[in-house]
């Protein structure tokens, strides 16, 4: 019963969040300077041509009516058609999902496989006061260097020296620099927090080896924040790694949405944003469930 209530609450709050996001993105698009008609017809179009186009796409109606139509359609699972290509948006997004999904999978796998061990190692080697400066500097750099800077650099180097690379490797590498750094840092902090807990001292006092203690008493205890971060990164990338996809010219969801923004392809942008938001919300619910499973103290509360 309590579980049912919990789910109902989660579903309701998720719906409210999505509704708010739909309003925001709808309003933001209409508020952008320049409209669909100007983009399509160019600067020399006559007012009559513009008006005709507006009627064809329903843009002559009030903003509220447009929003109402859109919501009603979304309610039936219809995300509209791209005003540029004339194809259903849902199908177009679906077709681009594999690209984004592969990119996400590669980057997240790298983040977990490299970031978690790095974080555990740096935490175990950490000394009070000095030390670990190099590690902190590197992870700080990794977290703070923007994707467009690193991505542009990589694109430049590769094209300048004519290196041959296969599809997803480079963009995934650029994305995983951030993901690895953030994961390593979060893991390190989480492990450091667990290391000072009395139950770890008790394990040391029982003569357990460091590896045994890490495996049995630390990883699970430190998993909460790391899981949360990993899921957040996954959701963020699944919603479209906008800049990186665009830079490397990958036909994923991110570059599709970026393009659509430029062309004022309202239906596509709206659907893309809703998709990203939904992925985020679903991911967050999954995290809560997972963290509750890993740490029974938190599970009780949920």
């Amino acid at each position, binding site marked *: 019963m309590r579980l049912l209530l919990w789910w109902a609450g989660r579903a309701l709050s998720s719906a409210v969040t999505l509704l708010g996001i739909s309003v925001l993105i709808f309003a933001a698009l209409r508020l952008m300077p320049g409209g669909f008609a100007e983009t399509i017809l160019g600067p020399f179009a006559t007012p009559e041509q513009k008006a005709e186009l507006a009627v064809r796409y329903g843009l002559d109606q009030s903003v509220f009516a447009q929003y109402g139509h859109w919501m009603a359609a979304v309610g039936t699972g219809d995300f509209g058609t791209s005003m540029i290509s004339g194809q259903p948006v849902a199908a177009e997004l679906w077709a681009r999902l594999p690209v984004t999904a592969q990119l996400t999978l590669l980057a997240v796998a790298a983040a977990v496989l490299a970031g978690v061990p790095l974080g555990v190692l740096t935490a175990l080697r950490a000394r009070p006061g000095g030390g670990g400066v190099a590690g902190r500097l590197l992870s700080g750099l990794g977290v703070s260097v923007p994707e467009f800077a690193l991505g542009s650099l990589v694109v430049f180097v590769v094209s300048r020296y004519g290196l041959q690379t296969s599809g997803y490797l480079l963009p995934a590498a650029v994305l995983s620099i951030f993901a690895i750094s953030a994961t390593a840092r979060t893991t390190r902090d989480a492990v450091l927090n667990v290391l000072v807990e009395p*139950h770890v*001292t008790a394990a040391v006092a029982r*003569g*357990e080896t460091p590896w045994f203690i890490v495996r049995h008493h630390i990883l699970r205890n430190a998993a909460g924040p790391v899981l949360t971060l990993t899921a957040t990164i996954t959701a963020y990338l699944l919603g479209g790694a906008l800049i990186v996809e665009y830079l490397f010219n990958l036909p994923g969801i991110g570059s599709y949405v970026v393009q659509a923004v430029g062309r004022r392809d309202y239906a596509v942008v709206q659907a893309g944003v809703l998709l990203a938001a939904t992925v985020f919300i679903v991911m967050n619910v999954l995290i809560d469930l997972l963290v509750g499973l*890993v*740490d029974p*103290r938190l599970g009780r509360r949920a």
Partner: protein
Amino acid sequence: MSALLEVDGLEVDYGTARALDGADLRVAAGEAVGVVGESGSGKSTLGAAIGRLLPRQAVVTAGTVRVAGEPVLDLPPAALRRLRGQRLGFVFQDPIASLDPTMRVGNQLKLVLRAQGREGREGRDGHDSGGGRGGRGGGINADVAFHLGRVKLDDPRVATAYPHQLSGGMAQRVAIALAMAASPELLVADEPTASLDSQVREEVLNVVFSLAREEGTSIVWLSHDLPAVARRCDRVAVMYAGRVVESGPATEVLGNPVHPYTAALARSAPAAATPGVRLEPVPGRPPVLTGPSAGCAFAPRCPFAEDRCTTERPEPVRVGTQDVLCHRAAELEVIA
């Protein structure tokens, strides 16, 4: 007789603060020794040093710790782990926090028993070191039930509970079961009952002491409660400002204290009070040392202090049955 535990002249600093200022302690096999002192007297540091469990910022500047002849502070990591796993057991203040919050009690016990099963082969003289598997069939679950039963936790629900679902007293008994699973030679208990209410306190202490007697395990019990310690322990060591100022048979130390600090402590204990007679708190505050004490650290609070007490460090003298760190011990004994 060679002692099981020998701590000699141990000095430990935390940054600029001095926690131990030349502490000495002897514990014989099978003996229960209470280490008594106020907060900040260094008893917890002494307890941690026995297993080399000092926090990272602690620096040992002098002294030795020997357990069964092994130099604890100089052992290589593997030998240190073996010593901790086979000869030493520790019980800490906060029972619930000293259990892994993500693991059911039974699984924690299994983990410890399995680890011992592996180490057991190189263990000591066949003394039931194989995770307690000697003669009891029924596999690991039976072993878990056996070890929980030893600490009077017979309810089968305990094994499947998480630590946060237990009461403090139950959690501390689980911690005792974990520490005693390897049948250690020496159990160090750092105020194991500080966070428990008085009814549960007695039960937990009964469990510790009866289990230790059964196994022939020596106990070092760190506490601030002199009368309680004196009731259960064979010997008592009183700590003040990082040194053991008086040690001897429990009844003697409580009944005929020689060191002025021990005497003051005994007078200030509520349990020892005669009804109608006002309790006498020890005047003044314990010092915070930043280096070796020049003389006797208790001198500023001591009604018997004379000039050399502030300038000359007292060396242990034997008075009756007690070892005492006091320049005037012999005279004071006569006064008493």
